[in-house]
């Protein structure tokens, strides 16, 4: 980096390739491959490691889902194309290339686990958080770079343990991603023990990451970067880190207890007199199955906000940048995020109305559940209002961000009936629930993550991803996502239960014509419809995958460090940022979203651009 660049002009005409070679201060020897890519302590490399792994896991989890959708639409029919391969790899459970009920169960459990703990959380929190947060707050790195590396390695190891569990005798965990006891202890496979060990590793990884994120945001903010000048993305990550820090350990405790149940033979979650396969088991009994559910959902519900808050943060950044005006209601957004984080700890038992808990305590959880929807709605409303009157730049990141808003809206609003005990008793464990939370996470969070990938790709590589294929990716994904998930609301309301390996054939009118409320043929036909939409969704990801890899070397080169003309500090670094990030410590003099400020030549004013002439007085920000 040229040493004479002391202020950051809007366009720094530095070819990114040169920037890569020139800034070598402090890095006199070129580290080898292992040092650079595997045992790196640089937050940007770790962020990319997380991102790459998480995208791979998401693809794998998606593939498991495709196999399950085939089984649901055509129960017992061999899987075309992949069937023989499955039989070769997994043997008996996939005999003749068809998916056995046990295999279906383990695919279901692992799809959930992989998508949540190995896909979305690592991508939304660890990958984007690692790459972007230190840049946004003007820090040279995370506070504890080596702990950061250890966090990634724990994550990697956890992923390996999860994958290995597919190949042990009996196969992977089969008790759903929620692993309810006593089911999780009585299924005769060691997959559950692998699952628990994997989870403990993943939890360790998240805890180390959370400590690091909080310490970084508290301690390493650049001079002038006051709390109310933090980009909202950083706030979202901050709250997420606190949720992970305080909600994960009880699940770790529960995981240890269930591991004791499974491996040592204790009875923490096994009630007295538990009979398995018609015979009373050897366990001493006296345990409480509900205890597992409480400890699980004490993490499980805050986890929802771990999935959604970073996504909202990405959307906020993309929207502010592409509407070219300040984010509407910055303070409301900040306080809403904090309130969501706080309240998310005391809503968990709304997942457990079906356990028959008393009305008083159910009422308490209904009340907190309804209250927590308020800040979520405030956040969404602020983002919608931010669009008002803006001269919106439509590009791929913005398309995904705009797609997020209604999709998350549908997901959130359909959650309200599930938060009320009376409605939940009917809808519990049906496809309605599946549709609800997938609308939050799939077209919601994952769209936001795509937006983030397209948005920060130029900072990571110095090239843009292809715009045309980006749009193809968006419109196809948007269409197929909705075709996949919208019919599930109807199926669920008609009473189709989730987690059934035969796609509910045994409850259909063709099989039991005289049964009251048997599922009519129209509902059953939707299964086939969803399968083809899911395959379409899979095909729609191909342009993205090719685009991602192709653009690293062949994408359109950006002609500045700040191609989106953004205000936040992450764009005021060389491209890609060197080890240590900034060529000098940035001094922040204004809020994060100074777009189209009157009296400026450009329609954006970076946070660290010195105030003209006078001493750095604080610019008014809302």
């Amino acid at each position, binding site marked *: 980096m040229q040493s004479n660049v002391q202020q950051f002009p809007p366009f720094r005409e530095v070819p990114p390739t040169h920037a890569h070679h020139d800034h070598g201060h402090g890095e006199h020897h070129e580290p080898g491959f292992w040092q650079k890519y595997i045992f790196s302590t640089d937050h940007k490399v770790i962020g990319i490691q997380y991102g790459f792994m998480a995208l791979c896991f998401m693809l794998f989890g998606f593939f498991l889902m495709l196999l399950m959708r085939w089984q649901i639409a055509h129960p017992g029919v061999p899987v075309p194309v992949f069937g023989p391969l499955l039989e070769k790899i997994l043997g008996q459970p996939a005999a003749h290339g068809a998916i056995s009920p046990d295999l279906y169960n383990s695919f279901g459990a692992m799809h959930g686990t992989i998508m949540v703990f190995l896909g979305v959380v690592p991508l939304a929190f660890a990958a984007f958080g690692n790459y972007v947060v230190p840049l946004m707050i003007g820090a040279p*790195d995370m506070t504890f770079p080596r702990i950061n590396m250890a966090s990634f390695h724990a994550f990697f190891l956890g992923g390996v343990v999860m994958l290995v569990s597919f190949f042990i005798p009996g196969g992977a965990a089969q008790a759903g991603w929620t692993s309810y006891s006593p089911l999780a202890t009585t299924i005769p496979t060691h997959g559950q023990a692998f699952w628990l060990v994997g989870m403990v590793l993943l939890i360790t990884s998240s805890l180390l990451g959370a400590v690091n994120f909080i310490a970084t945001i508290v301690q390493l903010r650049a001079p002038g970067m006051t709390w109310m000048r933090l980009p909202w993305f950083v706030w979202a990550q901050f709250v997420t880190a606190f949720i992970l820090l305080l909600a994960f350990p009880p699940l770790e405790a529960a995981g240890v207890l269930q591991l004791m149940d499974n491996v040592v033979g204790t009875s923490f979650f096994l009630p007295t007199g538990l009979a398995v396969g018609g015979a009373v088991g050897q366990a001493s009994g006296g345990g409480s199955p509900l205890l597992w559910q409480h400890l699980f959902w004490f993490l499980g519900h805050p986890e929802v906000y771990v999935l959604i808050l970073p996504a909202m943060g990405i959307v906020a950044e993309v929207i502010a940048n592409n509407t070219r005006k300040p984010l509407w209601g910055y303070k409301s957004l900040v306080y809403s995020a904090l309130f969501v984080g706080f309240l998310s700890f005391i809503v968990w038992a709304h997942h457990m109305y079906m356990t028959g808990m008393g009305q008083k305590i159910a009422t308490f959880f209904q009340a907190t559940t309804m209250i927590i929807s308020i800040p979520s709605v405030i956040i969404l409303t602020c983002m919608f209002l931010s669009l008002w009157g803006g001269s919106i730049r439509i590009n791929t990141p913005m398309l995904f961000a705009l797609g997020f808003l209604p999709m998350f809206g549908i997901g959130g609003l359909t959650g309200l009936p599930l938060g009320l005990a009376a409605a939940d008793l009917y809808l519990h464990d049906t496809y309605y629930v599946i549709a609800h939370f997938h609308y939050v996470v799939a077209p919601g969070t994952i769209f936001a993550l795509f937006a983030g990938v397209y948005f920060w790709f130029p900072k990571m590589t110095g090239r843009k991803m292809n715009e045309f294929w980006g749009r193809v990716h968006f419109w196809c994904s948007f269409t197929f996502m909705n075709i996949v998930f919208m019919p599930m609301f109807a199926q669920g309301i008609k009473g189709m239960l989730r987690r059934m390996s035969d796609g509910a054939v045994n409850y259909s009118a063709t099989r039991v014509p005289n049964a009251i409320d048997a599922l009519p043929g129209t509902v059953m036909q939707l299964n086939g419809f969803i399968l083809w939409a899911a395959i379409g969704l899979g095909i729609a990801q191909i342009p993205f995958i090719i685009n991602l890899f192709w653009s690293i070397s062949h994408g359109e080169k950006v002609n500045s460090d700040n191609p989106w003309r953004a205000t936040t500090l992450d764009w005021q670094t060389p491209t890609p940022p060197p080890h240590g990030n900034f060529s000098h410590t940035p001094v922040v003099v204004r809020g994060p979203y100074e777009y189209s400020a009157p009296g400026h030549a450009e329609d954006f004013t970076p946070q660290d651009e010195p105030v003209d002439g006078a001493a750095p007085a604080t610019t008014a920000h809302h």
Partner: protein
Amino acid sequence: MEIPYTTEHRPDTGLYNAKLGVWLFLASEVMLFGGLFSAYVLLRVGAEPGMWPHGWLNVTLGSINTLLLALSAITTLLAWAACKVRDFGKFKIFHACTMILAIAFLGIKSYEYRDKFLHYEIALNNGTFADGHLVEKSADFDLANKTGAVTLHGHIVEDRKELMDLRSPEAQKAEHKELVIPAADIKKMQNYGPWHNTFTAIYFTMSGLHALHILGGTLVIFYLWGPGSRMYKTDPERFTNRIEVSGLFWHFVDLVWIFLFPVMYLT
């Protein structure tokens, strides 16, 4: 590249990085043990009436361990204070004491575990229960083939409930002697391992997890005392901070024991 505030305090928070980091980590530890203590309460409250054990653990050994840990907490603080006043020799002595105390704690703990693993409850075919410590198993002892015999030092009770409260006057009066039990009389034989009942399960799990923390803490202290202490010569302030941070963890482990001891041994 230098990361700011590794040794000096950030003005607005008054903390250096590692100190904030360790407090955050301890917060997560509080949640971890909070979850386990919640589980303990729930299991105890939900136990069948009269089936929660009292007085199963050796109070003398537990008390000694409590004092050992309290003492080690104090030597840890003194080790930090010695670093703070730049008295490296005293630091070495104090932290050597810490490690010796920690190892003594673990030794006593494993002796207690061994005692539980040698303690058997045997359901007999005539409906009574023999309970006591294993003296010996005959060479041909085989439960499946009903050959041989096992010798316990203990007593025989009519009802399992009599084994629950060892503090009760009846249990205190019970006469313990050597019992020779033929395998043919045995319906079920089980030692007091974690699988025995909910109490031993939570006792082994929580004290085991605590012992793992002790082990981890000891390893960290050993590193800082041995190879890691080279930093004292190059950057004494940062080294002192490391001692403080590891000390905070150590004190937290002591804190967990302060609650574990009464909850497991005394009530």
